[in-house]
């Protein structure tokens, strides 16, 4: 696992669909493995291939696009809803993503992502909309995510076709992350390391509980 996150600068893969549930991210029939590796090849399996067949990729699905590449996935609101399967986070990470940007994440998915050093970045609805517009207009646009400063930035492009007065400037937004988790991600710490260091306090708690 690629541990610790600081600054990620990359082109991105836009998936402007809302309510993407974890059954879409990785269907249940691919949850039979007993290790964490190899789920990436079945990421978005049923959106990616016709008739469950890798020989017939769906041309209009973004993961099959020769144009959109990069380690940042941009997704519609309520991303990762449904099943708690951590396999969804593993599949996204295994497929080469380090960041998922959305205006809203489901709780369990967000925790699973953080526990796998896959950074969920929550932006406003308006900012998300702008990212989609800019990236669809110019797929080579590089987005910068700076965890230390808690900022996400994207340059607008001259040819985006919009009449926006910010044309040619860089748009930025701050994102929230709790300071404990931020420290973990910056330093490559797991929750489990922290919890193991708490063993004495846990035992004390147990001795006092009814």
């Amino acid at each position: 696992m690629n541990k610790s996150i600081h600054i990620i600068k990359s082109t991105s893969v836009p998936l402007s669909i809302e309510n993407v549930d974890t059954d879409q991210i990785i269907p249940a029939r691919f949850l039979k493995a007993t290790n964490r590796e190899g789920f990436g090849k079945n990421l978005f399996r049923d959106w990616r291939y016709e008739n469950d067949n890798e020989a017939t990729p769906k041309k209009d699905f973004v993961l099959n696009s020769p144009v959109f590449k990069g380690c940042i996935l941009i997704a519609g609101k309520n991303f990762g809803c449904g099943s708690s399967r951590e396999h969804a986070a593993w599949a996204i990470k295994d497929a080469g993503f380090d960041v998922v940007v959305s205006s809203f994440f489901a709780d369990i998915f967000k925790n699973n992502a953080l526990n796998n050093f896959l950074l969920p970045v929550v932006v406003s609805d308006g900012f998300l909309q702008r990212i989609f517009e800019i990236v669809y207009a110019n797929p080579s646009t590089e987005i910068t995510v700076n965890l230390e400063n808690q900022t996400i930035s994207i340059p607008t492009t001259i040819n985006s076709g919009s009449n926006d007065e910010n044309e040619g400037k860089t748009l930025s937004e701050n994102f929230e992350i709790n300071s404990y988790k931020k420290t973990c991600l910056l330093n490559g710490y797991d929750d489990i390391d922290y919890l193991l260091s708490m063993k004495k306090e846990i035992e004390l708690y147990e001795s006092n509980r009814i």
Partner: protein
Amino acid sequence: MSSVQDTNSDSRDKAQNKAKSLFEKIWEKHVVKEIEGGPSVLYIDTHLIHEVTSPQAFNGLTKRGLEVYRPKQVVATADHNVPTLNQHLPIKEELSRIQVQTLKQNCEKFGIELYGLGHPYQGIVHVIGPELGITQPGTTIVCGDSHTSTHGAFGAIAFGIGTSEVEMVFATQCLMQSKPKLMRISVEGELKKGVVSKDIILYIIAKTSASGATGYAVEYAGAAIRNLSMEARMTICNMSIEMGARCGMIAPDETTFNYIKGRQFAPKGEQWETKLAYWKTLNSDRDAVFDKEIIINAADIEPMITYGTNPGMGVGVTGHIPALSEVDEKEKPYFEKSLNYMGLQPGVKIKGKKVDYVFIGSCTNSRIEDLRMVASFVKGRHKASGVEVWVVPGSKQVEAQAKKEGIDKIFEDAGFLLRQPGCSACLGMNEDKIPAGKYCISTSNRNFEGRQGPNARTFLASPLTAAVAAITGEVGDVREML
């Protein structure tokens, strides 16, 4: 009539010293340590595991050279990936067989009680916890499964976790958790005939949307909830996650205590009295403040059915699928994608829509009361031709009870197939899949694209509404047939 009220956090802070909600009472008792600017270290009383989300956690322990810290607080079963026919034979599919065997080996290695295939207690993890008396009020319960919210029906904080968190609980019996916001949903008044708990929760989710409770712990209250049996309450709490809630809960009362008393792992004798006294304190104080309150009139609820690809896309059976003009402009792309998948048109009535499959099962609706409800409707009737009906009991104990009551005969006479316990076609992980393009009316909890099999189309409904479809071959109104 429903109303929504937002409460600002100032008034909540002031109230904190005095009145407490059910959630807060249990949460505070389980905080081992609070971290500034971060989550709390939360102690977990009961950890339920199954074959699909545990193997990588056990591998993690082994890699770190750790033991399971409190193996007696962990209970295992095999449910997600087991066949529901011929369970006495070795599992045919290799990967599934290995996964179920791996659970057995891990439980033996780490000293965990396993109710695996062939055991009289085996079943869906959220069915067996309550039925064995493992699920108790005032406790914290986790499982690597989002429907762990089911156990909140007993007045417990119960929620689903990922596999990394399963590993944390194995190693330390604790988790890092941020305290959620609080929401209370009160269902007041009396339910109308033919309307059951599944309809209540589908109605609530349709009102709040599939993400409307994200970040909240939800307490269900009100007369219509109080009047429900324990099994009906479990159906409500079970689907809390379908509106994004961290957990769902109902304050324990005499119904709860009567249900638990005498069960296999329920407290006994003096211990029962001590626990009972504590459990009776578990309710929200009169002045407890919630970040959000929703009040629903039970009489407004009719039998519900979903038409789309998330559980929030539901209407009353006599209603119609929203017309394009009724859909918010922003929601249109998703709405149209959803209807396109379902092969349905906007604005049309859903009643009368033909179905190919009926699935009665899952952690939402596979308990004995669900089977009794279906049997009492179906008795003396026969399924429509061309419809395939699967009934999958939630556990070996439910299956045995159904047989004892002759429910199996009623199903057989009706042309239904009574299968063996497991999650089955709820998630289509084993071979129990709905074929591409077919319509299935299902008592389960999710109508996501491909959930019941690639390109399968799901209508979520109550066991009664599913029974109507089994007999008539179409979506119908149970109230016309009672």
